[in-house]
């Protein structure tokens, strides 16, 4: 059982203010150009931080895996020179919801698989993370995939209670962050209130998969759902929004850019999406997933079947971002349940 302390409402701004004084802090804040909507971005002051926010469009994975990331720079000298340009500045990521914490853990696993990738762990090592508990909306289904109460990857975790936040201290780094902070022991009442919050939250999750991840993986693997894929793909734009907003998607593209003087440049890694038409196109024009329905199918299999078998967890945290972002109204829970139902009927029939 981790240490649990209490940070009062009055102490909260001071705590985050001090973190910001120590170094860069990324957290949920109001969008400058679109007030009323939130996103993860660097905070200028503790006032910017919004601890109660609805799930952001882009998950906090962007702190470690930027949408566009320079892998290295090069100079076209003879011989050419390659230069690492990785930023090593430590930073703090705050205000991360449990599903997104889980997302970070899943990416830890994916990138660590041999042969391991270097950028993700290097960036992860730079950051301390503070999680916060959340209020679900109609798209959330974390309870179906076991991420509802995740404390993965974080050093401190804050749960709202009457007099402030209950602070779970999960790591030494977390303890360190609290060193000069105004925190007190949690009382039984505090614990009870935090537990009440968690219970209420769980109860507020209304969407859900009709099968456990393990069962869903099996149903997917054995069934033939071509009709469902066709129906979904008739509506799908292949716009990639479901992937580019997903906290567990980690596909990317790599391209080179020359500097304008044409004497050097950089190699850049960019988020990619398996739903895009050219994702599996090879030189010569052969596209191994040319048809839209094949790509739609691939997404479900990758999330709930292939990676589930590889890592023992579905590569979905139930955050609901893909459903929110899909302007074609393709909802991951609805489609999954459609598949589950079809598979079960198939089994019965």
């Amino acid at each position, binding site marked *: 059982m981790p240490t649990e302390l209490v940070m009062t409402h009055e102490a909260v701004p001071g705590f985050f203010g001090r973190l910001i004084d120590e170094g860069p802090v990324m957290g949920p804040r109001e969008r400058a150009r679109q007030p009323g909507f939130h996103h993860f971005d660097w905070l200028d002051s503790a006032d910017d931080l919004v601890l109660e926010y609805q799930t952001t469009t882009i998950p906090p994975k962007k702190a470690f895996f930027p949408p566009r990331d320079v892998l*290295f720079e090069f100079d076209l000298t003879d011989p050419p020179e390659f230069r690492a340009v990785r930023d090593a500045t430590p930073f703090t990521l705050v205000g991360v919801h449990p599903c997104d914490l889980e997302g970070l853990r899943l990416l830890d696993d994916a990138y660590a698989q041999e042969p391991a990738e270097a950028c993700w762990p290097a960036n992860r090592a730079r950051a301390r993370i503070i999680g916060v508990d959340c209020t679900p909306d109609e798209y959330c289904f974390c309870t179906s995939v076991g991420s509802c109460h995740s404390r993965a990857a974080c050093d401190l975790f804050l749960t709202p209670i009457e007099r402030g936040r209950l602070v779970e201290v999960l790591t030494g780094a977390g303890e360190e962050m609290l060193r000069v902070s105004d925190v007190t022991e949690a009382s039984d009442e505090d614990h009870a209130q935090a537990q009440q919050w968690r219970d209420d939250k769980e109860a507020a999750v209304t969407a859900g998969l009709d099968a456990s991840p393990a069962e869903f993986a099996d149903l997917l693997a054995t069934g033939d759902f071509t009709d469902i894929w066709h129906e979904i793909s008739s509506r799908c734009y292949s716009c990639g929004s479901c992937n580019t907003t997903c906290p567990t998607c*980690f596909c990317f*593209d790599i391209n080179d850019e020359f500097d304008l003087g044409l004497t050097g440049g950089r190699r850049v890694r960019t988020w990619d999406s*398996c739903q895009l038409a050219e994702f*599996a196109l090879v030189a010569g024009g052969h596209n*191994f997933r040319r*048809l839209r329905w094949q790509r739609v199918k691939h997404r479900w299999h990758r999330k709930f079947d292939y990676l589930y*078998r590889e890592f023992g967890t579905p590569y979905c945290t139930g955050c609901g971002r893909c459903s929110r972002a899909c302007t074609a109204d393709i909802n991951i829970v609805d489609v999954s349940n459609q598949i589950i139902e079809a598979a079960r009927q198939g089994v019965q029939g």
Partner: protein
Amino acid sequence: MIEHDNVSPAEDITRSYQPELARVIGKWQMTELMVLLRLQTESGENLEHEPGQFLQVSLPGYGEAPISFCSSPTQTDSFELCVQAVGNLSEAMHDLRPGDFVGVRGPYGHGFPIAEMEGRDILIVAGGIGIAPLRSLINYIADRRSDFGRGIVVYGARTPSDRLFLDDVAAWDARADLETYFSVDEPDDTWTGMTGVVTVPLRGVEIDPDRTTAAVVGPPVMYRYVAMELLAKDMREDDILFSLERRFKCGMGKCGHCQLNDLYVCQDGPVFRYTQLLGRSEAIEVWAPEEQKG
């Protein structure tokens, strides 16, 4: 999965996207579209590849792409790549001259399971530029002739002028311990050999299915027909090896582009057993005639 006895490449290479330097020490224009490059790492280190493995090759500013080794691992002081001009990187590689540098990462992937193939008859089926990775295997077998049973090379090209590695081909043809079968789809006046797609010569090859391993590389359309031919010879599905192509960006099983159902072609392949592919709906080249139906 193919067990493979070679150690994985040096850690610092796999852990980073940053290539090491290799210098072009020889260049031969084989056809209008194909160039053969001989390279040496700048560090002088031998990359210790297996036949069938590939390198991530780059020219800064032009990008990076997977290219198969086409030289045998028995050639230790240098290695060779054969590049078809199809896009920005590969075209720029045609402009390289001896003394120029390229970046390399790797070797990556699972090549041909040499240990398991030793002692067996090896049937090599190459279509088009598929001869490039297979040349690595053929020359390896030629250099370690006593380690293997029969060595059979079946090579089909579109036209006589598309045929690659003519010196090697002549050398294989001249050896008594290698059996060679060549064909072209579209013959010209100079062509005296067989006419037809690669399955035509293949049909005439007699093998002992119990002791034969087949290594097949070619364009996507070829695999299915070769498989049918080999199965007609009673070969076991497990003894048929196909090397597949997909788009690769990282070579490390991360970028997702090369995924074939649950497999990564760059890591689990590019050399696969037919058995692995049969169960997988996205190995469309081996089981669907053309495109999958919409």
